[in-house]
């Protein structure tokens, strides 16, 4: 999130789409309600009438997987009705930039320009800008790349800036805004209703109410979660919500934003820490063999020509310095060659099981993950796991993955996998920092000792690492220096200590003789260098643990802050926890004020240009001061550079950085009951893994019912933890499928009946809840039945067991995020 949960209270209108926020993020209810108490309108768009819908003002249904059609229609409606925030759009976005004249979207074929048939991917140059001039990088004193010439900095050539052509009058048809506007002209009310299945009156009401946040002094918030992301075009779902928010001037403003609701599984921490194949900690790129064979290539490929990411080498070199310590020198490219490079094979989750199935992967570590019950097409995943030689599961409880051989469809006698179970300490049984959706880092203290032999994850990791190092040093191996040169000194009194890790994440001045008792901690990533003088494991966290005078007392660090002071009343709480980056509570906060620097709404003042200086209630997220060579600091008057993390420093309508589309376009789910009405192509050409034989596509003629899967408030994820809590099991004792009265009548099913739900991948039984909260939708004139299933059950656990619903979900996914399509596929249903 660019703001925080409590920022919802500042909104004038909130729309939840692709989330059941009051159920699955109960604390969100507090802040949505706080907004409503002040008169805000809340809208829920969802295939079924959820508990969130029950406490909203307006509910609108839609067919699973048709979000881009819904949002595209909203964009069209807002532009047609002139509800967009013009000053914001023209000032802070690339609306005025001219797009390559070759750019085209062909409605007949459903393809954008640039398709490379041979490699089955887009070449995205035609999605880029027309260039007005080329500006060489400034390596002079005070220039953005002056640091590149400092001794110790690896040699690389900073990129030229290709300054785009602009038309500030928006007359040129190739203006990014005009391309954008034209793209969504097809998304009229009637067509959207035909695709999504709602009625046009309800749809127009939603568009009108939400569009009102385009007024200068109004703001709207979008709340979303996995309902948007778990599609083979999930990244585009999230992008189109950003486009709506930019159009209405709702990004960077308190009460606005595109709010990704993350939860207990800690997606925020996982992405910050790069628990994803293609990422390096702090949202940097993990090197690939193709683009980053050498450090120079990485630096030249990843460094931006302008904006804050001109500093990227400082973050990356400082991270390498933390990884390899004294072994990392400018002569050996700071150990870059020891980092493994990603090759041509994909090792994201869904591919992992293909590789297990083929025998390539023989051993598997599962750390706080339960794919035998949670991944898409779990039946295939389990069968693939049964080919493993060994498996290690680190978890709180015996998950389905920890006893995968006990799955009802597997025969233990035929499985030779050796399984090691390592009990992990609960969060209450160890100290350390957590990070939540609002990027707030908070220190948590140990409350009780771990039970029995359970250990904190970091301790398990430490024991494992020491043994690996011992084996490499005594027995050797391929490229042992990649292991033996790693700096692993996070111990105090011989015991691994998260406070040392916190100092490493925070960053410090490098000193070969330094120790955690003496290292000089840095208070900002602005002090990082690309010359080996600083070490920092995750640059975005800099400053969160910087008090060197009390370095082993987290309560004396910003991450330990518990101040309830909130001077603005906006819920910024600068002394409570630490919001990365730099304790900034609202990202892109320059956009909370107009071109002249006056807040759009004085009640939501975050930054303000007084005429001579910036008055700030939050840490500014833009270049607001400059420092001359003699050290004199001067104020930078208002300009249009509100988004400094892009090289344009403006937000993007048309963009060339996504793999699949320059503008989000509607395609149907991989398994859909309907044909694509908006263009001539059924699925995105960039869908991942659709050709894998394990996918076994379900034909709508055989499986006509659209299904979506979701969670309920009483349970988390696969239920491994929550099904272990008797009070929670009592509050939600059985797994269910929700269906309409109409479908139940058609299938002769009564409430409470056990029903069989199946498709080509799996077959499960669960209890029917027959309800009027789900209604059949009229899709292109035809009746379309929609059902919904929760997915918290499996065969493990002592209190409540049930079938694994994820057996049915297709293992196809998004080319940008590799997320599976859990939220829209096909099944059939009958009374069991």
């Amino acid at each position, binding site marked *: 999130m660019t703001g925080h949960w*409590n920022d919802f*209270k500042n909104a004038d209108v909130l729309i939840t789409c692709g989330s059941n926020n*009051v*159920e699955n993020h*109960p*604390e*969100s*209810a*507090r*802040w*949505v*309600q*706080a907004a409503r*108490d002040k008169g805000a*309108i809340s809208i829920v768009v969802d295939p079924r*009438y959820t*508990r*969130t*819908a*029950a*406490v909203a*003002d*307006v*509910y*609108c*249904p839609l067919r699973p997987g048709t979000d881009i059609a819904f949002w595209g229609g909203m964009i069209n409606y807002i532009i047609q009705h002139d509800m967009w925030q013009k000053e914001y759009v023209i000032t802070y976005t690339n609306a005025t930039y001219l797009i390559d004249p070759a750019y085209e979207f062909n409605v007949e074929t459903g393809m954008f320009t640039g398709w490379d048939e041979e490699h089955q991917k887009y070449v995205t140059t035609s999605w880029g800008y027309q260039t007005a001039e080329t500006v060489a990088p400034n390596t002079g004193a005070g220039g953005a790349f002056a640091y590149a010439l400092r001794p110790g900095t690896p040699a690389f050539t900073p990129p030229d800036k290709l300054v785009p052509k602009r038309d500030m009058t928006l007359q040129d048809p190739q203006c990014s805004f005009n391309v954008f506007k034209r793209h969504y002209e097809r998304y009229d009310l009637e067509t959207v209703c035909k695709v999504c299945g*709602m*009625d046009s*009156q*309800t749809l127009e009401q939603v568009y009108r*109410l939400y569009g009102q946040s385009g007024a200068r002094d109004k703001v709207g918030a979008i709340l979303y979660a996995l309902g948007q992301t778990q599609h083979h075009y999930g990244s585009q779902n999230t992008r189109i919500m950003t486009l709506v928010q930019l159009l209405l001037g709702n990004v960077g403003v308190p009460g606005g934003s595109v709010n990704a609701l993350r939860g207990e599984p800690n997606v925020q921490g996982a992405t910050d820490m790069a628990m994803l194949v293609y990422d390096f900690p702090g949202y940097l790129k993990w090197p690939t063999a193709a683009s980053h064979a050498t450090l120079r290539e990485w630096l030249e490929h990843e460094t931006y020509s302008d904006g804050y990411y001109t500093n990227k080498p400082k973050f990356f070199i400082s991270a390498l310095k933390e990884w390899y310590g004294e072994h990392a020198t400018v002569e050996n490219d700071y150990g870059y060659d020891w980092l493994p490079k990603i090759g041509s094979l994909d090792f994201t989750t869904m591919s992992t099981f293909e590789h297990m199935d083929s025998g390539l992967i023989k051993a598997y570590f599962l750390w706080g993950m339960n794919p035998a019950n949670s991944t898409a097409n779990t039946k295939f995943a389990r069968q693939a796991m049964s080919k493993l030689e060994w498996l290690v599961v680190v978890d709180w409880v015996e998950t389905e993955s920890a006893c995968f051989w006990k799955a009802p469809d597997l025969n233990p006698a035929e499985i030779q996998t050796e399984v090691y179970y390592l009990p992990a300490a609960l969060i209450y049984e160890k100290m350390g920092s957590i990070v939540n959706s609002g990027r707030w880092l908070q220190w948590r203290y140990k409350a009780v000792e771990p039970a029995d032999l359970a250990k904190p994850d970091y301790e398990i990791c430490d024991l494992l690492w020491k043994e690996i190092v011992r084996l490499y040093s005594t027995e050797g191996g391929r490229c042992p220096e990649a292991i033996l040169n790693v700096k692993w000194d996070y111990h105090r009194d011989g015991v691994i200590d998260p406070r040392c890790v916190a100092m490493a994440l925070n960053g410090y001045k490098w000193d070969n003789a330094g120790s955690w008792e003496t290292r000089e901690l840095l208070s900002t990533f602005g002090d990082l260098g690309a010359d080996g003088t600083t070490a920092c494991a995750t640059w975005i966290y800099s400053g969160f643990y910087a008090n060197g005078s009390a370095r082993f007392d987290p309560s004396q660090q910003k991450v330990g802050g518990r101040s*309830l002071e909130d001077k603005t009343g906006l819920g910024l709480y600068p002394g409570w926890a630490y919001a990365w980056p730099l304790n900034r509570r609202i990202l892109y906060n320059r956009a909370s004020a107009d071109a002249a620097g006056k807040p759009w709404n004085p009640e939501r003042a975050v930054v303000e240009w007084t005429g001579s200086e910036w008055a700030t209630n939050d840490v500014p997220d833009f270049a607001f001061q400059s420092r001359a060579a003699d050290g004199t600091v001067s104020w930078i008057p208002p300009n249009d550079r509100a988004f400094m993390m892009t090289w344009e420093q403006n937000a993007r309508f048309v963009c060339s950085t996504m793999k699949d589309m320059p503008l989000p376009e509607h395609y149907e789910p991989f398994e859909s009951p309907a044909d694509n009405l908006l263009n001539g192509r059924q699925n995105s050409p960039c869908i991942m893994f659709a050709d894998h034989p394990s996918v076994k596509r379900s034909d709508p003629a055989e499986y006509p019912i659209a299904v979506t899967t979701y969670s309920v*408030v*009483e349970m988390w994820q696969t239920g491994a933890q929550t099904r272990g809590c*008797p*009070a*929670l*099991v*009592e*509050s*939600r*004792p*059985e797994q269910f499928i929700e269906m309409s*009265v109409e479908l*139940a009548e058609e299938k002769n099913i*009564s*409430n*409470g009946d056990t029903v069989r739900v199946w498709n080509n991948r799996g077959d499960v039984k669960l*209890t029917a*809840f*027959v*309800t*009027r*909260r789900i*209604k059949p939708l009229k899709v292109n004139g035809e009746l379309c039945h929609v059902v919904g299933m929760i997915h918290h059950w499996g065969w493990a656990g*002592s*209190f*409540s*067991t049930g079938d694994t619903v994820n057996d049915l979900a297709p293992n196809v996914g998004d080319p940008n995020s590799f997320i599976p399509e859990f939220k829209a596929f096909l099944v059939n249903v009958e009374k069991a």
Partner: protein
Amino acid sequence: MADYAIFFDSSKCTACKGCQVACKCWNQLPSPLGLNANKPTHSYQSPLDLNGDTRIIIHFEENDNDKLWGVNWSFGRRSCMHCYDPACASVCPSGALAVDGETGFVRVSESKCIGCKYCKSACPFDVPRYHGAQSKINKCTGCLDRIANGGPVSINGGTGQTQAQFSVPACVHSCPPGALKFGPRDEMLRLAHERVAYLKAHEIDPSPHASVYGEDQLNGTHVVMVLKYPVETYGLPANPQVNPLTGLLGLMKPLTGLAAAATVAGLGISFLTGLGYKRDKMHYDEKKHEQVDLDTGEVLWRSDAVPGPAGDEDGEKDARPAKKGGK
């Protein structure tokens, strides 16, 4: 006497059941422990009714409305209403149920309960439940233990700052949307009326049936509710009445005195049985100090009885059928 109330706003309740679970945790009330031991409810509501180990449940009810999409989904709060003139306390022969002077809530002194179940019969809201294994009545205590420790303070469950953790009932403390609050009753009533007026006049989604519940019913209760939809859709009686016979039993109490609780119980049972008032026919054997079900001969309670295994052993367990479609 101080006068406090629990405020429940059904229009803000998200039915997360945090209150149900918080009640169980704070009051150490067990849940079934066997594999798949919970009876399926075929509903979002679970358990379906209060029981010997469950003092609060969220009631779910779906009703059609005249809108194209969605339903009127009522989230009700089923628990003790803490009446002004509690029928349960007035019939309680042992003094186990009594009005708390600090709050006006109906407190429960477990050690005094003799398991006679009069309160269960007397309650106009069908709230007290009999725990067979413990031979005790179980109902909401108002978490007076928490309140006594922190002192009753007003809480703004919505956007307010963290309050002293032990100053409000566990259910109130758990409520994310601020649908539950605790504070002086007149303040809670003011909030309730304000909210009802707001709901009725809402521009986009008006609630013509919105009402305040617990202000006038039975001369008032210490639970004050905002009901968005009609009263009946929340599992509550629209016009709760105290059985007039409870008054007769109340008259007996001063005659016998509370010290001889067992005797009183015996007399009371005969008295009520004779009037055909009790649903359960029971007899108290003064020699054996046993309470016996006259129909089955089962010993329901013995003065030296060791509590049996945990569980809800109410005689009327599962009296209500599983929910039918759409509930």
